[in-house]
Structure formats: C-alpha cells, structure tokens
C-alpha cells in the first residue's frame, strides 16, 4: 500500500510512457560500461571453474580467515549502520521537520564527511584520539604516551564509518520526510498527539521505507569501505573482507587474482542482499508522491529549540570540526610529533606541497577526471533513470540492471581497478587504441564506480515525473528521443545535476581506484596524498588534505550559490 493510493493520483497511468525500443540500447550501453570490469573479474573465478579447477574457490571458502573476515565485515558494517542511523535520523528529523534555525548550514556540515575521503577522516580521528593529539594534548586530555589509541578497535571502526556514512541515512530520510504530507502530521496533532508521539506513530512509520533505503546504502558503503579498516582495523588485528582482499593482493603467486575475485564476489553477494532490500523498499514507496505539492510538515520546537540547536552544533563540532582541526594542526606543525605552539607552527608545508609539480598536475587531473565523470554520468543517468521508471517488462529489466549497477560501487576500489586493467589493457576492439596508461582508464573506472551516485537522484526525479508530461508530448507527435531531449531531460536536469555534484566531489579525491590505474604524470589528488603519507611525510599529506577539503568546500558553496534558485530538495543540503 502506498501513499499514492490515498491521493487521487494513479500511477498506473504511466502505462505507455516508455517505449521498449530504446531500452535494450540503454541497457546495453550502461551494462557495457558498468559491468564489464566486474564481469571480467568474475570470469577469473568462473573460467577455471568451468574448466573443472576449483582450487581458488575451495582455498578461499575453506579458509577460516575468510569467514572470520566475513563475520567481522557484516558485524562492523551493521554496527556502523546503527551509528549512522543514530546520527542521521535525529538530524534528518530536526532538519526536515522542525523550525530549527540554521538548518541549511547544519545539513551542509553533516554532508561534508561524505565528501572527505575515508582515509582522511580516519587519520583525523587517529590524530584526535591519539596521545599526540594536537588538540587534546594541550588540554591534558590526551591518552598517556604508550597507551593504545582507543580508535584502533572495532568500536573505533564502527564509530568512524558510522560518522562517515551518516550523511547517506540523513539524505535518504530527509527525502522521505519531505514526502510525508503535512496534513497527516496535523491530523495527529489535532487528535491530541504531542511531538514525540507524532514522530513515533506517524512520521517514522511513514518514512520507514526511505529510512531503510538509507540504512541499506550505509550498510553497503560500510561493507566496501577500505580506508577505515586499513587504518584502524589492521593495528587492532581485526580483519574485514576489504582488508583481506588487500592482503591477498599483497601475497604472491598467480593464484592471487582468482582468490581475490572469489572474495569480491562474496562481498558483492552480501552487498546485493542490502541493495535488493533497498530496491524492494524503494518499489514499495510510490515515489510519485515524493516532491508533490504537499508541503512538508513543520513541528514547532518551542522552548526546546535553543538547547537542541546548541546540542546539534556540539555534535557537528565533535564529528566534523574536531577531526578537521586536528588535521589542520598537523599540517601546521613543523615536525610531526612536536606539540603545536607559536614556535613550532609553520606554513612551510603548504608552500612545499603547493610547490610540488605533481600536486599541480594532480589538481588538474582530478578536476578533469571528476568533471568528465560527472558530466558523462549525468548524461547517462537521465535516459537510464527514465528507462528504470518505465513500467512492465522493459522497466523491470532495467531495474534489475539497477541492482547490478551498485556492484562496482560496493566492491573495494582496488578490485574494480584490477577488473579495469583486465578489460582495458588490450587495445579497444574497434578503435585500436588502448586506454591503459592514459587518463581514459581512470575515467572508465570512475564511470563504473560512481554511476549509482549519479543515478539515484535522477531516478527519484524520473519517478516523480508526471507521466502526463510525456504523454502530452506524444500526443504532439514527438518520438522517444525527442521526448527524452526536449521534455524529460530538462525536467529532471536539476536532480541529475545534483547527482553530478555528488560524483564530482566523491571522485575529486578518490584513492582506491586510481592508486592502481594512475601512471606517471597522470596522478590524482588521492594518490598524491597517499604517496606523501606513505613516504613518511604526514605533515605534507595533512597540508594537501586541508587544501583539498578547502577546494571541496569552495566547490560546494559555489554549487549552492549557483543552485539557489532550484526547487527545494535538489541541492542536497538546502532546506
């Protein structure tokens, strides 16, 4: 049952909006780009298996470590999802339903962790919680030298991943809250229900599908996260599937690839359960109500407003400002390990880092790559999302592909990168040129990895599109392509652009994919930060991270400023 059935809108009038003729084409195009690298990797398992060679499979599946890592992965991803919910849900409720002031700024700050690479967030927390903490040490709150950093633990991983993925829950729930018609809330108030009761009995049950979708996203993201377990899990001796995969890769021998492929398929299978749950729930919510005319409900906070505002900003300061400040102070300290003070502070690292010629190249490359990826994905996402919103067999087919599209996003980046090498090393069949060693292969990998980010907002917009818009065009004699170009694309463009912004920002400091695919002169920002960190220059890495974050924030603000005339809900953090 859906909300739509209560309004007089009848989604089944969508019949006929989608002509099947365009579907196979789009399906083939998207499938080619997105699934080839992953499928090629699966072939590493399936090929030998078909030939009767089960060694890789049995080796992985009989290894105790595999199941220990699987158990840890599932448990930690679940825990991180709980933390993400604990953060994302209250903030979504406050920002989405109440008269809290400064909601836009608050939402902006909450979305930031999504835009900052996992390893930077993890590093910030290590800095912050460690005995050398530049913030805690001066306050005398740092753990005594020699005591273990409390972040190196399952709890630490759960906390850091939870914070990192809280924006996913936040964004999904907020979108769902937007669709809760105001009169349903007011009806409860008129029935005498107070705020808490209204939330518990009306708002949350109605936005449950959206919430669950956010939780599934967060679960999948935590499952595939490598940066956090690499930095926090390994010192604590807690293997998870992505670190196990990395470890296999660090091993020797020609058996590595098939084994890695088996593990990737394992992650993929677990992620698919989450994705399928999310898709099933999405199908249950009739998106056609979303973004409808019903204005979102507003609950007055009354006297609780001021204390809640203070609480909110304290939490934001803790989860965002504190780690960032720790990072910033690392970037300012003359030598890593010294306390930060007037005589130890220096801007030299910024000068050094900005003077490195690979940094300039990396900024250019990352700009080009993430810009191109965002643009191409937006162009691809619109027809694809449109096809997915279609009814009947065609729509089902494309929606099934929609589940698979999440795969390259769920497996660790290094796995996707290997798949890309396998596919793109040889010259392309028709063109005769190889993408290998060019920015092209990184771009191809980005397209695969981030398609789901671009697709999701476009998909929501397409689903919310009144089918009559397109039927009117058909009645005017417009064929499928013309309708796509002149009606659908302009109408969903704002939402698709929001997806493009997500892609741009996420790709801008991407590491795990490009680390395998970059080549001399084609390094990305993530790679350079990582190289500095690995090369024993944490201060330089921190300085470059700060510059990167500053650029990210500047881009976000510019986008917000440019998009201030767009309808609500398109710029993700705007009220």
């Amino acid at each position, binding site marked *: 049952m859906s909300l739509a059935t209560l309004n007089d809108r009848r989604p089944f009038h969508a019949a006929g909006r989608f002509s099947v003729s365009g579907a196979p084409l789009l399906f083939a195009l998207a499938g080619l780009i997105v699934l080839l690298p992953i499928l090629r990797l699966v072939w*590493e398992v399936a090929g030998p298996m078909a030939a009767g060679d089960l060694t890789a499979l049995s080796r992985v599946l009989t290894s105790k*470590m595999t199941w220990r890592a699987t158990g840890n992965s599932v448990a930690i991803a679940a825990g991180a999802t709980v933390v993400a919910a604990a953060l994302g849900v209250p903030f979504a409720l406050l920002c989405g339903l109440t008269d809290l002031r400064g909601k836009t700024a608050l939402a902006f700050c909450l979305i930031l962790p999504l835009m900052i690479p996992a390893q930077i967030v993890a590093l910030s927390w*290590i*800095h912050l919680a*460690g*005995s*050398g903490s530049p913030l805690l040490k001066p306050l005398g709150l740092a753990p005594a*030298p*020699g*005591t*273990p*950093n409390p972040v*190196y633990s399952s709890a630490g991983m759960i906390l850091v991943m939870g914070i990192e993925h809280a924006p996913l829950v936040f964004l999904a729930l907020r979108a769902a809250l937007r669709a809760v018609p105001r009169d349903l809330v007011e009806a409860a108030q008129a029935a005498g229900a107070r705020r808490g009761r209204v939330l518990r009995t009306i708002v949350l049950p109605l936005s449950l599908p959206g919430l669950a979708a956010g939780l599934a996203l967060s679960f999948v993201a935590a499952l595939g996260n490598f940066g956090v377990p*690499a*930095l926090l899990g*390994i*010192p*604590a*001796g*807690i*293997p*998870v599937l992505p670190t*196990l995969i*990395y*470890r296999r*890769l*660090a*091993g*020797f*021998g*020609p058996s*590595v*690839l098939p084994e890695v492929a088996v593990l990737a398929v394992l992650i993929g299978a677990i992620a698919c359960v989450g994705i399928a749950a999310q898709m099933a729930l999405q199908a249950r919510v009739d998106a056609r109500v979303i973004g409808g005319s019903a204005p979102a409900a507003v609950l007055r906070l009354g006297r609780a407003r001021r204390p809640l505002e203070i609480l909110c900003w304290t939490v934001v300061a803790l989860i965002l400002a504190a780690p960032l400040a720790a990072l910033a102070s690392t970037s300012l300290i*003359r*030598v*890593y*390990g*010294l306390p930060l003070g007037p005589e130890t502070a220096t801007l030299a690292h910024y000068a050094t880092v900005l003077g490195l010629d*690979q940094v300039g190249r990396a900024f250019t490359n990352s700009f080009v790559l993430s810009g191109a990826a965002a643009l191409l994905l937006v162009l691809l996402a619109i027809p694809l999302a449109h096809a997915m919103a279609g009814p009947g067999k065609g729509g089902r087919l494309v929606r099934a592909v929609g589940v698979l599209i999440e795969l390259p996003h769920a497996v660790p980046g*290094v796995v996707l*990168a*290997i798949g890309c*090498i*396998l*596919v793109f*090393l*040889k010259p392309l069949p028709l063109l005769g040129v190889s993408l*290998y*060693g060019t920015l092209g292969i990184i771009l191809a990998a980005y397209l695969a990895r981030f398609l789901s980010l671009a697709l999701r907002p476009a998909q929501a917009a397409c689903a919310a599109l009144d089918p009559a818009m397109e039927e009117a065009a058909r009645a005017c004699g417009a064929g499928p392509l013309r309708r796509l170009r002149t009606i659908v694309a302009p109408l969903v463009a704002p939402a698709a652009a929001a997806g493009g912004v997500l892609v741009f920002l996420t790709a801008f400091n991407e590491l795990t994919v490009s*680390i*395998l695919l*970059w*080549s*001399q002169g084609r390094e990305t920002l993530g790679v350079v930060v990582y*190289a500095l*960190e*690995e*090369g*024993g220059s*944490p201060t330089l890495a921190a300085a470059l991270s700060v510059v990167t974050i500053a650029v990210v924030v500047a881009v976000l603000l510019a986008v917000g400023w440019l998009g201030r005339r767009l309808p609500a809900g398109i710029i993700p953090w705007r009220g």
Partner: protein
Amino acid sequence: AAQAVTDKPAGKLVLYTSQLEADAKQTVDAFKAKNPGVEVEWVRSGTTELMNKLRAEIAAGSPQADLLLIADAVTMESLKAEKRLLAYKDAPVQGYRPGTHDPDGTWFATKLITTGIAYNTAAPMKPSSWLDLLKPEAKGTTVMPSPLYSGAAAIHMAAVKEQPDLGMAFYEKLQANGTTAAKGNGGILKSVASGEKLYGVIVDYLPIREQAKGAPVAFVFPKEGVSAVTEPVAILNTSKNPEAAKAFIAFLLSKEGQELASRQGFLPALPGVAPPAGFPDTSFISLMPYDPAKALKDDEANKKDFADLFGG
C-alpha cells in the same frame, strides 16, 4: 666499477618502482644524464600496488614494465619461480656481498633498507636489543608492521625465525607483551613520533630522517643484527628493450649509482661506499642472514602464523 656498455642503448624503458617519488625522479634523471638516448617512463607506487598492477597486466596478457625496482627479494623470487624474469648474466656485481643478488642473475640488490627499532625520545628505556621489546617497560607500547601487508616485515619475520635465539618464540613473546601490528612503516613512524606508541619495529631511513628534522624519535640497530630488504631490481623477460634495461641495472650497481642511493639517505648495498649521515658505518651493522628462496616457500606459513598471533 661500472663497465661501459658497448652500444649506447636507446628507446623507451618502462620502470615500475616503489622508490619514493623524489628518489625515483633523481635516480631516473641521473640515469638519463648518462644515457640520453633512453626515454624512461616510470610508475611509482607501493610494492603491493605495483605487483597488483603487474599481476593484472599479466592476466590480461600484456605486462607493461621492462624493469622492476621494488622493496624485497622474496617477491622477485616468486616472479623468478614463475619464469617471468630475464637473467642478466654479465651484470657488474664485482664487490657485492654474496646473497645480495641472485646467483642466476635475475635480480640485484641496490641498497639496504634495514629493519630495526625506533623509539620515542620520551620513552623510559633506550632499547639496544630485540629482546628489550619483551621487557615490562615496553608492555603494550610496541608496534610493528604486519608481514601480511608489508614486504619488509615479511622478510623481517623470515629472518627473525631463522635466528636461533629469536625464532617464532620471539613473536609469541611479543604478542604476550601486548605488541600490535600496523599496515605499513609510515604508520609506525607516526605512532612512535606522536607518542601513541613508544617503540616501533621499522625500516631505518624513516626515523633517521625525521630525527634529523627534530622529531622526538631515534633509531637503533639492535645488537643481534637487523634484517634488510635490498630493493632489488630485475628485468622482466617480456621486456621490449632488454638492452636499455641492462644499462639501467648497470647504472644502479655502479659506484655512482650507489653514491646516489647514499645521498638519498639509504645504506648503499656496495661495501665501501660511504653511508648517509645519521647511519653508522656499514661495517658496524650486522645483517641477520636469510634465504629469499626459503622465505618465499615459507611465506604462506609465516603469514598464517602471524595472523594467528596478531589477527588481521
């Protein structure tokens, strides 16, 4: 002494190296100064990433690198066992200690990166022996790189296991004393420099460099000896330009090449070349012996043992 190559090599050379960015650039520039006809294209990354890349390229049927210059000989042994390396029989190895290159001429050590102990200068104890890490003062405050992720640590483990007075028991005692494992050497340095841990098992050059900059760390070569990775170089047998590759190896092994390594802050592999500042003379450093081929054979078992003790 470097032996002059008769025909000046030319053409393109693809180098996969795990040297640090700046060092790799210096090395390549110095080589190109001597061999202006060779165009060197290089990819710098961690050994693991490089090997992943190479593995994927091999699986795709077209390895791209001519030359590999990576952290450890065990990896080279594995490639040799797969018959992926080209033998350079008449390489200029005069003056090098045996064991620092493959007798079959497939790989050659270019420097010594030893693994010793770094400590935070605020630490109560100044260690001088591996066994000091088992003392109560070090309880719960020691960190070491995991052989599961770090090649140097894998070799260190292989070497320690072959020491009669250390052996696997040493690792068991470390575990009992609360030692933890981290992914790479960079993380160890940060842990010790920040005071989060007091003692770290770590490659030499990182703490020595930071100490010179004023960081609160110091490095010791324990008296039992240190393990060393030798940053070997090798030619892939799929190389499209073996002549230029040989010229590159010849340059690295030359006195000039070794002096360059020293200038970059590494112990040179060629005895007699002056070590960099902050390092003791090579003769004061004893190396724990180990056999790369055996290390390769034992690798899986070692890693499993380590994982059983220290987890992931």
